[in-house]
C-alpha cells in the first residue's frame, strides 16, 4: 500500500495533481478577497455615476444645495464639510491621549498593568458603535446641555448677545458632541499602531540614550519617538479613516441638519450619517444614486488614507531594520 502511494501513477496523481488542485483552489478563493475589494469600488462607482455625470465630479462635491424634494439638486459639500470637521476635530482631540496610552503601555507601565491597558484599548475598538451612540444620546448629550451648552448660551445672552447665533440651539446634539464621542472611539486605532511602533524600537537605542545620562522622558524624546514616528503617523491616518466612516454613533448625536454647518455647537451631518438617514426613505432614483455617489467619495478618501498608512508603515519597517 505504501508502494502504491509513493511510486507509480497513483503517486503522481496524488502528489503532483493533488498539490496543483489544492493550490489552484486556495488561489481561486483567495483571489475572491481581491475581487471583493474591486467589486466594491466598481459597484459604488457604477451606482453613483449618474449624479456625478449630471453635476460634475467636483460640482457634486462642492455643491452646497442638497434638496431631494423640490429642486432635485444634489451637492455634497455640507456633508463633506461636516465629515471633515468632525473627523479632524476628533483626531486632534484624541491624538495625544492615544499617544500617551501607547507610551504608558509600552514603556512605563508594569507588565500586568500594560496588559490590562492593552485589553481595554482592544475593548474600546470592539464596543459597537450603536452602544456609544446610545450613551451619547442619553448620557453625554444631556450632560453637555446642562453643563456646557446652556451655561454658555445664558452667559452669552447676558454679556455678548452677538455671539448667540454661533452657539446654535443649546440642545446638546451637534458637531461638538459628535467630535467628543468620535474622539473616544478612535483612540485605540492610533494607540495600537503607536504601541507596536514603540515596542519595535531596538533596545540598544534606549540603552545608548540612558548611557548618555538621559532621563526617562529624554530617552522617549531622543531615542524612541523619532524611530517610531512612522507607526504613530500611520495610526493617526487609520484613526482618521475610522472617524470618516463612523456612522451610527455620529448619526445619533450630530443633530442631522441639511444646511452647511457654520458653528461647532450647531447640528450638522456627515456623509455616512446622511446615507444612513436617507437611504431607506429615498424615493427618486437620482436621490438614491446621489447617496451611493456620496459612498463612492467616502470610499476614495478611505482608500487613500489606508494606502498612505500602509506606505508609511512599510517605510517605518525598513527604517527600523536599517538601524538594527
Amino acid at each position, binding site marked *: 500500500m505504501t508502494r502504491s502511494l509513493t511510486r507509480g501513477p497513483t503517486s503522481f496523481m496524488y502528489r503532483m495533481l493533488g498539490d496543483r488542485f489544492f*493550490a489552484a483552489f486556495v488561489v481561486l478563493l483567495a483571489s475572491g478577497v481581491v475581487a471583493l475589494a474591486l467589486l466594491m469600488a466598481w*459597484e459604488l462607482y457604477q451606482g453613483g455615476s449618474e449624479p456625478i455625470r449630471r453635476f460634475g465630479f467636483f460640482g457634486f462635491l462642492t455643491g452646497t444645495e442638497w434638496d431631494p424634494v423640490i429642486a432635485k439638486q444634489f451637492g455634497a459639500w455640507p456633508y463633506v464639510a461636516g465629515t471633515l470637521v468632525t473627523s479632524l476635530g476628533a483626531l486632534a482631540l484624541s491624538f495625544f491621549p492615544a499617544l*500617551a496610552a501607547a507610551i504608558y*503601555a509600552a514603556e512605563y507601565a508594569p507588565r500586568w498593568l500594560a496588559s490590562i491597558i492593552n485589553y481595554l484599548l482592544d475593548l474600546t475598538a470592539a464596543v459597537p458603535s450603536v*452602544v456609544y451612540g446610545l450613551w451619547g444620546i442619553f448620557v453625554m448629550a444631556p450632560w453637555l446641555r446642562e453643563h456646557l451648552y446652556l451655561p454658555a448660551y445664558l452667559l452669552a445672552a447676558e454679556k455678548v448677545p452677538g455671539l448667540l447665533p454661533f452657539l446654535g440651539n443649546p440642545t446638546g446634539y451637534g458637531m461638538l458632541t459628535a467630535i467628543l464621542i468620535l474622539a473616544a472611539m478612535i483612540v485605540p486605532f492610533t494607540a495600537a499602531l503607536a504601541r507596536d511602533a514603540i515596542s519595535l524600537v531596538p533596545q540598544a537605542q534606549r540603552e545608548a540614550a540612558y548611557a548618555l545620562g538621559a532621563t526617562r522622558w529624554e530617552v522617549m524624546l531622543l531615542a524612541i519617538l523619532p524611530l517610531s514616528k512612522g507607526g504613530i503617523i500611520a495610526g493617526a491616518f487609520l484613526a482618521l479613516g475610522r472617524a470618516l*466612516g463612523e456612522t451610527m454613533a455620529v448619526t445619533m448625536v450630530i443633530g442631522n441638519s441639511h444646511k452647511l454647518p457654520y458653528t461647532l455647537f450647531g447640528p450638522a451631518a456627515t456623509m455616512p450619517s446622511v446615507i444612513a438617514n436617507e437611504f431607506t426613505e429615498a424615493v427618486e432614483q437620482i436621490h438614491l444614486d446621489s447617496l451611493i455617489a456620496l459612498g463612492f467619495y467616502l470610499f476614495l478618501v478611505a482608500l487613500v488614507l489606508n494606502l498612505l*498608512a500602509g506606505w508609511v508603515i512599510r517605510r517605518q519597517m525598513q527604517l527600523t531594520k536599517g538601524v538594527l
Partner: protein
Amino acid sequence: MNRGLRLRQRYLRDRVMLGLVAVGTVLALLVLFLVMGYALVNGLSALNWDFFVRDMKPPGETGGGLRQAIVGTLLVDGVGVLIALPFGIAAGVLLSEYPDHPLNVPVRLMADTLNGMPAILKGLVAFVLIVKPMGGFSGLSGGVALGFIMVPIITRATEGVLSLVPREIREAGLALGLPRWQVILALVLPVARAGIVTGVLLAFARAAGEAAPLLFTSFGSPFLETNLLKPIDTLPLRLFQFAISPYEDWHRQAWAAGLVLFAMIVLTSLLARWATRRRL
C-alpha cells in the same frame, strides 16, 4: 544649550511628563469606563427573562422582549460567517503557506483596504448587489454585508495563527513523504484550529455589533422571522431604532440590548485571549 537646564529641572520635567502621560492614558480610556458603567447599570435594571423569550411589543405597550432581534442577529451573522469563512481561510492559508505566490501582495493589500473601509459602504454594496436585483430587503443581503466585514478579519487572523505553527511540524510531514496539500490539511490546520476558531469568533463579534450595513439590507422586522429572503431584525439595528424613538419603555430596552451586545463582545474577546494563550 542644555547647560542652562540643571539636573533638577530635567528630573522635574521627567516627572511632569510621566504625570501627563498617565493622565492622558486615563483620558483615553475614560469614555470606555463611562459607557461600560452606564450600560451595566441601566442595562441590568432593564434586563429580564422576557427580554430573551418574548418578541417586541408595539409602541406604547410596555413589556415584551427582543427575542426576534436576538435570533435574527444570530441568523444574519451566521450567514455572514458561512460566506466569509471559505474566502478568509483560503486567503490566510495562501498568505502563510505560499509566501512566494505573486497573489500575496494584492491579497494582503486588499484585505487591509477592505478592513479599513467604512462598514456602511459594505451595506451599500450589498444593497446594489442583492437587494436591488431581488427587489426587497432580506436577511440574506444583511449576511452578505456582514460577510464583507468578516473576510479581512478572518484572513489576517488565520494568517497570524498559521505563522505561529512551528516549522518543524511542516518539515516532519514533508519528511514523511506527505505532499504539501496534505501537510496543510492534516497537520498545519488542525494544529492551528483553536486559533482559527478564535479569529472567526472575533469576526463574528465584530459583525454582530454592526448596525450601519444592516440599515438597508436586512432592514428589521417586529416579528420573529427565520426566512432569509425576508427582512430580519437584528439587535444593533433595533437598539438604534429604540434609542431614537420617543418611548420611555423602548429606551429601557435599548439599554438592555446595549448590555447584551456589550457582554457578547467582552465574552468573545476574553474567550479569544484564553484560547490563544492556551494553544501555541
